[in-house]
């Protein structure tokens, strides 16, 4: 493994030198390297090893998320706090028009029932109209509310299948597909192998669009990968040229799309990922899938 080691050592040095020359590139790991004899030797050796490709196969994968459609249910403590806030606001507020009307009506009732009631005086003030008290109005409104049937918030009561996009409207879901990698078919984020002449983001887009019988319209969030998963092939498959593979993940939000139910798609929440993904893969993927 001498050749790869030296190549790995030389490549960063050359990269950093080119970094120093190029301005406008903000990279936290840049170190100021003075051109010493060692570096010159490195550049010479690097030019020899330019033609040898890296032993890692590159894949571009997409982490397609369907963002939540409805707001989440409140926790018990959130419920209590919301109630407390509402109560405190009510205590600190002024009386509304409706409440004033209620007070006036109740006062009028007490005056009517008193002994020295002068109906002419009262009706002169109000112009003799038929008065509907505010209390009556409140009662009619309450009756109407009882008859009203609001639509169900979460249509998931029946238990929609895991492959449907409509499940768990309050959480963000991630797309999983079943693909054959090596000898096994496993659940993973949709990926495609990198071909020369395209950027990794284009690889990921190709991986998404090449899914059979599904058209998802996604907005990719930038050109930068959000995570990487590196694994080495088992010994039988390993050769001089390919030691393993690196999968670069790109984030995308689902804007529109549909899929037939026949194909093996899964829309899972972050908590359900562990049922389907392998542990080392899950470890890397779990980090960049935010459940916020």
């Amino acid at each position: 493994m001498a050749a790869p080691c030296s190549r790995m050592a030389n490549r960063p040095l050359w990269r950093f030198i080119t970094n120093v020359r190029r301005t406008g590139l903000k990279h936290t790991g840049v170190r100021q390297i003075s051109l010493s004899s060692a570096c010159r030797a490195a550049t010479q050796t690097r030019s020899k090893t330019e033609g040898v490709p890296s032993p890692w196969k590159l894949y571009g994968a997409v982490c397609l998320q369907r963002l939540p459609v409805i707001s989440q249910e409140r926790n018990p403590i959130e419920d209590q706090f919301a109630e407390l806030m509402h109560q405190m606001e009510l205590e600190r507020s002024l009386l509304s028009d409706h409440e004033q009307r209620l007070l006036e009506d109740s006062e009028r009732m007490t005056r009517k029932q008193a002994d020295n009631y002068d109906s002419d005086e009262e009706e002169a003030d109000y112009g003799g109209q038929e008065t509907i008290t505010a209390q009556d109005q409140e009662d009619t409104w309450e009756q109407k509310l009882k008859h009203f049937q609001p639509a169900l918030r979460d249509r998931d009561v029946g238990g929609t299948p895991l492959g449907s996009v409509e499940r768990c409207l309050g959480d963000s879901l991630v797309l999983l597909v079943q693909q054959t990698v090596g000898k096994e078919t496993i659940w993973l984020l949709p990926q495609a192998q990198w071909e020369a002449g395209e950027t990794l983001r284009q690889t990921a887009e190709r991986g998404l669009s090449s899914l059979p019988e599904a058209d998802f319209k996604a907005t990719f969030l930038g050109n930068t990968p959000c995570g990487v998963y590196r694994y080495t092939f088992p010994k039988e498959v390993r050769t001089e040229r390919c030691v393993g593979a690196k999968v670069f993940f790109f984030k995308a939000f689902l804007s529109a799309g549909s899929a037939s139910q026949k194909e093996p798609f899964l829309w899972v929440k972050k908590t359900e990922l562990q049922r389907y993904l392998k542990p080392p893969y899950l470890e890397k993927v779990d980090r960049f899938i935010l459940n916020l």
Partner: protein
Amino acid sequence: MFLSLMGVDGHVSQGPWFASVLTLKTSAPLRAEPKKKKKVDPRREQMVRERLKKKLKKLERVPPELIPIEDFTTPAKYMDETRVRGAPQLPFEESERRALLLKEWSRYKQTQHRAEMEAVGLAVEAQREALEELRLESEELYQAALRPDPLLFPFNHQGPSYTPPKAQYEAPEGKYNNITKVYTQ
């Protein structure tokens, strides 16, 4: 009658006010010397005009009246004293419960914030590792990854609502009366 009017010459002259048609009609003011135009006059008129203009400018220099912000003025009907709600007398248990609930809420929010910060930190770390690995692979892919995406912004997304949207729902068009006050400066 005409014979008596005729003078020695035989001309008809009925006094100095009645000249014949053939002569030029001249009157005393017409026969006077022509008026001398004073050179100061146009200048005086100009001065008068300038003074008027200056007065107009002074009047116009008044700063424009500021448009009142209607949200900042409390309407008069809320300053009414009869609207004041009586301050409630809370029992001791109730005030205790409220204080404890507020403390629990602050603890809950603190744990939530910490979890959020941790999650974001992990995501940033994952991205940094990905860029490192990509760099080790190939420089041009790394540079392509670092380039900003011009098509990403402006980014629009409809946030979550309380109820899910109905499929094929057509909102009815309604009439409205716009009663906002429009001020001109």
